[in-house]
């Protein structure tokens, strides 16, 4: 049963990575920018989740508010931070993004205090037994929530006309524009969806740890970068699979290698190993 339980926990952790990394890979695909500040939006998602839940008692409302606010803020970051420097070399945007991320952490520290905040009545903490394994309701919610959101996104991207155009734009914006696509609109949509998904991840991590602190985004920020490299930069399906794989590897790794390497070291050892064998990422074409 330990194996199955570890698998389940790995998938839950992987789901969270997936929600964060999808937005990152979308931005990379569209703009060739490593959007480090994305992790700052993840943290903000957590803060809004806790604050709104504490104020209203509704986690669901908190989730919706968090997605909307963070989604809009993601659009604003595109407009104010990235759009003006798109014609500069990519490292300019990278530096701007890192600067923004640090500033966001400091703003959270000033606004919400250095020690973090918690749910007053943490929701979804009950324990459930399914298929002989024990999980917290929150973990089940993370798994199901991710499945529903990513499923909806996949349906939109593959079954609708605008979804098709969106995927086309991510692979070749100039050609997409040649056929009448307003790529600025696609970029806004991209930032909204990616940021809203990161907000969901933030709310969920806040739920699982019952804590949101200013630096909550720092580990996910570099781990998500590792994941999108593993997934083949800009490749959404690859990113999702890489995120789940990393979650599972970490779960098993902490049990079997935990005495030698900590969780994050295992993740990066995995990244290094994979890139030695497959420099184009796990699923990328050579």
């Amino acid at each position, binding site marked *: 049963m330990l194996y199955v339980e570890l698998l389940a926990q790995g998938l839950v952790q992987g789901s969270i990575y997936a929600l964060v990394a999808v937005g990152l890979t979308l931005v990379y695909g569209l703009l060739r920018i490593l959007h480090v500040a994305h992790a700052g939006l993840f943290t903000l998602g957590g803060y809004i989740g806790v604050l709104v839940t504490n104020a209203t008692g509704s986690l669901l409302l908190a989730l919706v508010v968090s997605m909307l606010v963070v989604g809009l803020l993601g659009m604003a970051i595109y407009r104010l931070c990235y759009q003006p420097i798109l014609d500069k070399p990519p490292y300019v945007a990278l530096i701007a993004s890192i600067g923004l991320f640090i500033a966001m952490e400091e703003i959270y520290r000033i606004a919400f205090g250095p020690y973090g905040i918690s749910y007053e009545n943490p929701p979804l903490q009950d324990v459930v037994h399914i298929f002989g394994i024990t999980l917290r309701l929150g973990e089940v919610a993370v798994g199901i929530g991710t499945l529903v959101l990513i499923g909806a996104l996949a349906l939109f991207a593959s079954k609708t006309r605008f979804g*098709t155009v969106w995927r086309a734009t991510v692979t070749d914006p100039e050609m997409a524009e*040649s056929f009448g696509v307003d790529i600025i609109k696609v970029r806004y949509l991209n930032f909204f969806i990616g940021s809203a998904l990161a907000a969901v991840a933030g709310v969920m991590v806040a739920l699982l740890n019952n804590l949101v602190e200013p630096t909550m985004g720092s580990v996910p920020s570099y781990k998500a970068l590792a994941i999108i490299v593993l997934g083949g930069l800009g490749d959404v399906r690859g990113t999702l699979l890489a995120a789940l794989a990393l979650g599972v590897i970490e779960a098993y790794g902490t049990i079997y290698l935990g005495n030698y390497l900590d969780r994050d070291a295992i993740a990066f050892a995995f990244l290094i190993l994979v890139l030695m064998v497959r420099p184009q990422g796990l699923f990328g074409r050579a």
Partner: protein
Amino acid sequence: MLQLKNIDCGYGVFQAVHDLSFSIETGQVFALLGPNGAGKSSTIMSIAGHVKLFAGSIHFDGEDISSLPARERVKKGIAVAPEGRRLFPDLTIEENLTVGGYSKPKGKEAVNRDMVFSLFPRLTERLKQPAGTLSGGEQQMLAIGRAMMAEPRLLMIDEVSLGLMPKMVDVCYNAIHHLKSQGVTILLVEQNTKRALDVADQVCVLESGNAVWQGSAADAKKDPDLIEAFLGMTKESAA
């Protein structure tokens, strides 16, 4: 239908095309010829709205489109099958066509798709296949088909036959002849000069970003020196 007036265009500070002027009449096939690096692709992409115009103007149907963004130009009726095809590799044939028709109402998609399939029946066999896995010839068909989804009145095709087997070249030229007979105006870039001269009405030869010869395809065929000098063909094969 299309007039280029003294255009200079290029990338950043680099100027690829100098003081180029030509016009294309409705229903004509216009061939842009010249050696590698002459500026043929740059010219096409500046008409499409992707390469920056430094000076001069581009008029389409009498309207100055020089400052229109690319997505507005396709709505005016200009579509491109660019150099290297630049299909959306992860999208299927069907989806590539959907994107091609994005500037038209959704209701026109099915009709236009059928039109493309009657032009290139081979595409129907592989509707769900990702474009990246198609053969070179199929990719060129799809690139032309994708452009046709926009119902262009001016179709621009860069490097029609580059890298294709002779049979595939025939398929593409048959399509070009058919489109011409339907009244579509066509601007093409071609390495295979003989092929181009066979289908073209007018020719412009570019070299190092300058137009060095312009005239009718019939005259181009009659002028062996020109063909020697610029088109790298022997007199025999042109005859």
